[in-house]
């Protein structure tokens, strides 16, 4: 299936037409997303033994060297976007001594102060105080800048003022005349760079937390690389109206509004069906963001998209009205809904046509205009628009024909929306770009790396991982690293529990999931001469940890939190977590593994060396160690062999009693799974533990636990 593409081919075009930089010869299933930031490939990171960019040097480039640091100015700093980003950037730039100037009108309500409690919660009062100290608040009248601003040497302006084109342009003019050469980025959610005359750095909500930024600039700049180096996720997109995120988010909202218009179904109930279908709650999201601002932004994006592309995007009367009134979608608390709504199968099909139909068509437009790397388009839906699975993944599952038919059915209901429909874009579903949305593989002819760009493991990741392994095998690669992608995935949180829903009612479904995912994990152990798992993010939990434990070696940054929180949910680990780590670990360390499994309490990687991980250290040391391990250089780390025989003399349960019945039942079930799967050979254990895991998912303890009840709430509308 997968096509070999080479990251070193200078003639090849990047995802949006930008030429790729010449690098060492590395083949990849598809272009690594890191390359779109000008940061090379993932394999190069391991080869070089260091990250491709450092925050310190990039701060120097963007703000000037220490002693001559210029300021970051955020205008509209008391607004939802401005204040959130001021806090987020201040917390990251404060250690580098970059002053943050928060500029707003004198009468603007204090948006910055609202964030202080959250800041104190995260960084402590002292840390929060330091961050707040680095923010210099200034007022201006909209026509001229405060004279004292000059003394702070503004180097970068992040404009977060209202979405009014002329007002924005005037704003840039004022700044440019005062500070020629100032680097400016707009946080606009809709206006293209070509309209504004500045670059775009469009952040996703919630602004104080979300790390995603859609970036529009001719080529990756130091500012964008700095965002990456500060731990954020810049995503290059092309210079089109509303980029990617707001086509999807506003598009989903419009589809939901149109369904409301057609059916009268209340917004809250549409949200529930939308969440069941796709994962998002478009109306709740607007209310949560703040209906007044969000309604306006959604209207603004759709209005301009409508002007550009026609009726597919044209705001309806309901949104026109809400733009003016700022009214919320959900009823006030004292009017919590009394009358329920439900749908039969035919109505659900109609709902699907009316909601997925336009979204699929909008996606075809994104693809036609090559608005971003396909993995980006897919990930933006998941990371910023609450989609359970990215829109491309949903279309891929639907298939080209079915997805096309769905859009055609939508056109029967809305013939006026036919313009801007590019069904041919779906015909490429078989290409690696479509097939490897979450998992990529690269190799240099000798060693390979498999990168996972999704933080939770699901059926899509499992299938793509298998394809990646197949591709490397076909390429005759015997030494492999498995890692996050250093871009979209900043941690590994475990299995995506949404995939467990079918297993609630059918033990066979649970068995399939556990067995198949375990088989995939085993391939990391069986299919390569050397496999090295690398944990580079803040945490690695549950299914993701189980997966990586199957590698011959596991290397982690020293402060990463590693854990098996399944007992708290509760669920029985189904990717061999109940026996595989025990088989790799000396009996004297088994109590540590029991504690991990039966209490759910995580452990720092540096405290788990020798029984969970093989090496823990600073990032660069880890990268170098991984490369030594995979290339067979002198690494001095012993290989912890898997004991395939039945294990004897397992410790008694050393964990304390759990605080609630479901957790206690989970603990009991996990213990039973440990004992049963360790009592047989490793070959037999795969199925034994899968049966335990699946059996627990049909139990009342699982159904009443966190995951079970949450899944039912979400999917049984």
């Amino acid at each position, binding site marked *: 299936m997968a096509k070999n593409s080479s990251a070193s081919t200078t003639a090849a075009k990047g995802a949006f037409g930008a030429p790729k930089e010449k690098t060492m010869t590395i083949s990849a299933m598809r272009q690594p997303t890191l390359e779109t930031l000008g940061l090379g490939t993932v394999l190069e990171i391991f080869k070089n033994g260091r990250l491709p960019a450092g925050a310190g040097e990039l701060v120097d480039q963007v703000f000037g060297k220490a002693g001559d640091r210029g300021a970051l100015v955020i205008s509209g700093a008391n607004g939802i976007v401005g204040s959130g980003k001021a806090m987020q950037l201040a917390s990251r730039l404060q250690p580098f001594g970059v002053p943050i100037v928060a500029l707003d009108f004198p009468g603007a309500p204090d948006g910055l102060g609202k964030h202080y409690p959250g800041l104190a919660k995260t960084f402590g009062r002292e840390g929060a105080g330091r961050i707040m100290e680095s923010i210099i608040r200034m007022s201006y009248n909209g026509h001229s800048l405060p004279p004292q601003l000059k003394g702070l040497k503004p180097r970068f302006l992040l404009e977060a003022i209202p979405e009014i084109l002329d007002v924005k342009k005037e704003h840039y003019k004022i700044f440019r005349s005062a500070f020629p050469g100032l680097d400016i980025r707009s946080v606009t959610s809709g206006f293209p760079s070509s309209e504004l005359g500045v670059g775009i750095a469009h952040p996703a909500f919630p602004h104080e937390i979300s790390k995603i930024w859609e970036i529009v600039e001719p080529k990756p700049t130091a500012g964008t690389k700095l965002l990456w180096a500060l731990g954020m996720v810049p995503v290059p997109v092309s210079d089109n109206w509303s980029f990617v995120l707001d086509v999807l988010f506003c598009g989903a909202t419009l589809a939901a509004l149109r369904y409301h*218009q*057609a*059916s*009268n*179904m*209340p917004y809250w109930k549409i949200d529930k069906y939308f969440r069941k279908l796709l994962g998002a709650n478009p109306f709740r999201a607007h209310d949560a963001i703040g209906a007044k601002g969000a309604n306006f932004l959604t209207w603004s994006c759709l209005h301009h998209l409508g002007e550009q592309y026609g009726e597919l995007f044209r705001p309806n*009367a*309901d949104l026109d009205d809400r733009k003016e009134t700022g009214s919320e979608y959900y*009823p006030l608390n004292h*009017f*919590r*809904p*009394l*009358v*329920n*709504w*439900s749908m039969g199968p035919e109505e659900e099909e109609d709902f699907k046509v009316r909601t997925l139909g336009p979204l699929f068509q909008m996606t075809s437009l994104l693809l036609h205009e090559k608005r971003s790397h396909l993995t980006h388009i897919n990930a933006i839906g998941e990371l910023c628009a609450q989609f359970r699975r990215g829109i491309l993944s949903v279309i891929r599952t639907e298939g080209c024909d079915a997805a096309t038919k769905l859009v055609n059915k939508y056109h029967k209901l809305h013939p006026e929306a036919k313009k801007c429909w590019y069904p041919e874009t779906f015909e490429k579903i078989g290409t690696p770009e479509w097939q490897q949305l979450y998992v990529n593989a690269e190799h240099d002819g000798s060693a390979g790396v498999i990168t996972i760009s999704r933080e939770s493991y699901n059926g899509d990741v499992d299938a793509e991982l298998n394809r990646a392994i197949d591709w490397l095998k076909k390429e005759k690669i015997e030494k492999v690293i498995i890692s996050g992608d250093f871009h979209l995935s900043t941690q590994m949180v475990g299995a995506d529990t949404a995939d467990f829903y079918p297993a609630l009612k059918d033990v066979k479904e649970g068995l399939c999931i556990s067995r198949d995912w375990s088989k995939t994990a085993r391939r990391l152990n069986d299919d390569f001469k050397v496999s090295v798992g690398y944990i580079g993010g803040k945490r690695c939990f549950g299914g993701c940890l189980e997966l990586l434990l199957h590698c011959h070696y596991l290397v982690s940054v020293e402060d990463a939190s590693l854990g098996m929180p399944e007992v708290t949910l509760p669920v029985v680990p189904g990717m061999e977590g109940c026996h595989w780590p025990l088989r790799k670990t000396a009996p004297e360390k088994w109590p540590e593994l029991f504690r991990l499994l039966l209490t759910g309490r995580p452990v720092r990687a540096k405290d788990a060396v020798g029984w969970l991980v093989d090496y823990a250290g600073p990032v660069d040391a880890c990268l170098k160690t991984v490369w030594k391990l995979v290339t067979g250089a002198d690494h001095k780390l012993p290989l912890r062999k898997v004991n395939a025989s039945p294990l004897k003399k397992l410790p008694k349960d050393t964990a304390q009693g759990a605080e609630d019945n479901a957790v206690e039942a989970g603990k009991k079930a996990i213990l039973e799974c440990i004992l049963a799967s360790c009592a047989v050979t490793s070959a037999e254990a795969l199925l034994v533990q899968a049966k335990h895991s699946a059996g627990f998912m049909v139990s009342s303890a699982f159904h009443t636990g966190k995951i079970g009840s949450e899944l039912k709430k979400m999917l049984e509308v």
Partner: protein
Amino acid sequence: MGIQKNMFPRARIPYGTWGSSYFPAWQASPLAEVNIGQFAAEAMNKVLGLRKVPKSELDHLITGSTIPWHWKFWNSPMLASCLGRRVAGCHVEQACATGLKAVLVAAAEVDGGSSDVAGVLTFDRTSDSPVGIFPERRAHRRTEALSDVWDNFGFDPSTGRSMICCAGNAARKYKLDRKEVDELSLCRHEQYFKAQASGFLAKVLVPFEVLDVQGRVRGVIDADTGVARHTLRGLRAMRELDTCITSGTQTHPSDGMACMLVTTREKARELSRKPEIDIQFVAKAEVRTSPSLMPEAPALAVKDLLRRTGVAMKDIAVVKSHNPFAINDAVFAKEFKYNWREMNRTGCSLVWGHPQGPTLTRLLIEGLEEATDLGGGYVLLMGCAAGDVGIAALFRVG
């Protein structure tokens, strides 16, 4: 005065855009514990959804109820918000005639040109009715409490007598026979069960799931709970509370809502599920009879109505009456020498209960649906209301 043929020439009722909840007996369903106004508004939105009428079509809302409910001060506009359509409107209240009066007010709005699509939403919750505390400086207690449903059953301030006393008075005036009244009541119940078995009721009634504050389903309103399966022997054996009045020959309080649309002819064609059906308002009449003779008032109203329209009883396809007492129908039949078996063929409030506000709306909906099944014709709707009032209206289904 000439013959009245069309009291609101511009107004039409679009066929099939209506709906009613079932009317569960008071205290016997989750409706006993909700803000009935909010419930009714949300239910109307759902009815319109089921009938494929976007609520955005509504430009006015006439609501009607008789029992105070929380936030009643805000009446129609608030209910329109609960329905999800911010339009203006007003609240109509005329005791048990409310369900018809609200329709007529809506028709007047359309006919006068101030509305093109007026919603009619009537409802009431007799369960747990509020108790009002009123300063009464002339009362020896200085402050009077009134339990809004129960106390009104028992005391008409104009006459000082109870509802049931009115019924006994009327039965005596018309020399009604207890046996005939029992037979009439049994017939009405049989008519209801026949309509239910035929699927007729499912065409006009909509089941609703009622949610609690956590959003969980608290219960389902899918039956006219309170409808009894009587036998003639059983009815005969019942204790007579007043002349010809037993618990089997009078209605019971219930909770519920009913709704419909009134619009222009053009819009009716657009919104109706059967655009070829044209439902017009012919005429209405209201009378007030002698003190404490309320059950005869509808018959007197019909007399006035037929006189003004020139329509004879033989011309009428469907006769529906709000009959809190079986004797209402017996009096009517006697006055018009009409076979009471030909009335209320799909059920009536004697059987399915009386939530007051929506009672006549549901009767009208049933009557229009029945006339449609019969291929059209006149629909006569009548009912009594507190204060010895009778109301009647004639509709033409063409």
